[in-house]
């Protein structure tokens, strides 16, 4: 039974890249195009890990994480934040919103999979 990972990113390019990297590593991937959509997808299925972008329309990464963390159903799911921004302010925001970990773009597949393995025992 392979693990399911939800990727939330408004960029099709990023979604494709994440999907390829994660599927190659044997994970099953479900996708959402922004925070709002991500919450909808979560209604249908609970993944074992969530990877989300920060800058997205409708509901951004922080808002999305906050919503997930408020929901008892998704307690304890590791959420990784994927972004090109690396400022300390954004890191703190992510942390306070409830992110588990942080990956900076551009990433290479090996690094991505490594982090995923580490947060998802």
């Amino acid at each position, binding site marked *: 039974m392979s693990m399911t990972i939800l990727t939330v990113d*408004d*960029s*099709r*390019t*990023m979604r*494709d*890249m994440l999907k*390829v990297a994660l599927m190659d590593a044997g994970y099953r991937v479900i996708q959402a*195009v*922004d*925070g*709002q*959509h991500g*919450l*909808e997808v979560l209604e249908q299925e609970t993944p074992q890990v969530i990877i989300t972008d920060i*800058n*997205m*329309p*409708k*509901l951004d990464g922080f*808002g999305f994480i906050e*919503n997930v*963390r*408020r*929901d*008892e*159903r998704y*307690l*304890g*799911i*590791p*959420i990784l934040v994927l972004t*090109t*921004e*690396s*400022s300390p*302010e*954004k*890191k703190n925001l992510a*942390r*306070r919103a*409830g*992110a*588990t*970990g*942080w*990956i*900076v*773009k*551009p*990433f290479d597949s090996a*690094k991505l999979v*490594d*982090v995923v393995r*580490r*947060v998802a*025992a």
Partner: protein
Amino acid sequence: MDTMAAIRETFFQECEEQLGELEVGLNAMDEGVADSETVNAVFRAVHSIKGGAGAFKLDRLVRFAHTFETSLDLIRSGQLSPSTTAVRAMLRSADLLADLVKASRSDHPVDEARVDAQIAELKALSEDVKEAPASANAAGGEAEDLDFQPVLLQLDDFGASEPEATRYTIKLIPAPELYRKGNETVRLLRELSRMGEFRVECDTQHVPPLDVIDPEGAYFAWRVELKTAEDEAAIQELFEFVIDDCELEIVVDRAGAVAASEASPPAAAAPIAPATAAPIAPAEEAPVFAQPTAFTSADPIESVAAATAVEPDKAKIEAAKPEMAATPATIRVDLERVDRLINLVGELVINQAMLSQRVLEAGLARSSSVAAGLGALEQLTREIQEGVMAIRAQPVKPLFQRMSRIVRELTDATGKVVRLRTEGEATEVDRTVIERLADPLTHMIRNAVDHGVERPEVREAAGKPAQGEVKLSAAHRSGRIVIEVSDDGAGINRQRVREIAIKKELIAPDAQLTDGEIDNLLFMPGFSTAQSISNISGRGVGMDVVKRSIQALGGRITIASRPGHGSIFSMSLPLTLAVLDGMVVKVADQTLVVPLTAIVETLRPKVGDVHALGVNARVISDRGGFAPLIDVGQELGYRRDAGDPVGSVVLIVETEVSTRCALVVDAIHDQRQVVIKSLEANYRQVPGIAAATILGDGRVALILDIDTFVARTNRSGVGQEPLLAAVG
């Protein structure tokens, strides 16, 4: 296709979309009608492009996108005000970004000087900002220090200890928040264990009895003894993400010997007393804990939460959830497949029509169940056809946005101040039509700015605002798409047009023309009012080329103008090129189709209308003048002699060769939409014939290409030789 190549393609397609969004948003900012969401969207567009560019190592693109993004971030955060200067700089940057994307796609060189100049302009803007920009990190080199600690897969190795190894005592008391954020002590401990020799103890003394446990509480305290070559910073980095959610203490043990197995409590000011837990085995891959019983009695928060009846405050969550609007789902399809599908549907339509015909001919009553079934089939087929056509339909928005940029460049080049307004950008048309519209539209926009709109001084003198406006609109109207290019300039100078037309011998010096007819002289070949051929509108590329392009698409173009107020060019185009509105006519024993867009009028001539001109030619009275009569049957070789126009039907058609011609046919069957079948693909190209279609009776009907058909005949109506002598 190779996956990475496919994703790269996706990236560039996405760039186009992002650039479009960028354009729209910046224009809104330029007009002062942008809200914070618009500014955010603009920022995100550049951010997105930068992200993808980084993934594909398009360094030039990343470098500029980064500077651009930084400036946009300043505007977004309110540190830089979106003044006209700033927004114009952003617009120029957007144009450069678009060019860089294009250059990166085809790996072409880039004008470095231009990039540097633009970067300088953006940086100059940020210098006005008092506070230092928030996110000023360089594009590269961000990654390493913020990533997770690289895994140190150190095999446990008691014998030969690293000479540099240091001993640490780490105390960790997680707070409930740590778990809520998806972190797990087990993972943290596992990471620590990978750093070297590792021993861990768990203090469970604060775990309350099961009946009072809060499943979301945190009651454990951990003490780790680690011997590692890593420095303290590395250890702290491991806890970077949980640092707010726990009590953490890392003590470097300089004193040397650390007790092995049975741990005796160090006299630390630690808030906890380590439990006298069972000895812990040295670090392995699997997490190791104290008494299994102590651990399992208070399982990971999740399962306990599941076991107890913790009711999530559903109402609160529902209220907190933002409004769920439907997200449009799309898939990408190979264009070839779509074309094949459209072809097949065309066949379906033809076959269905044939079936209907045969059933009727077989004498089945209209009220019979078969006829009723056929009616339903016809309805369904039509709906399928419309649905399939719609697949290839795309909004005109990207095309309009290209025009926006052209207007901007022209504004800079001509010194005129012009604004482009667009309407109906969401209107959809078949993508082939859009592609072929680009050039004519560009030309008309250029004309509008170059010739239509006056210089600011002239406008002001005339009591108009200095800024001129060009409006570009698209709308669906009676099954076609109507696109209008209008300007609020000086309108057509009819006097001058007339003079030029006379000089170029396009009209007789004493010709009487209505205003509308003078305006339409612009469409005549070889006409150009530019005193000096400006680079902008091109050398001698006149409106005649535009008109021909539009007509080649099956469209029509007209012009209306009011002196002092401006001009409107109005184009009507078919929604798709796969079907055609045609008039089905009978010529000799053949059935032909004449495109409806070419037909201006139909009439039944009376004796007095027809006049002889020379030996073989005839003309018909038409709007105060004469139009040459062309006997279609004779031209096509269906019969040797021309029939008598009186008693036949005459179609007045308009071409760009001669203004109006009269085609003589025997009768009109009806007017209908026919599916276009290519003659070239199935036979060969035949001059005068545009394509073919299959009628309900199964026979092939040729579709006339009016322009070439008429061109092959002299104006006097006598053909060179029958076009289709050999073709039955």
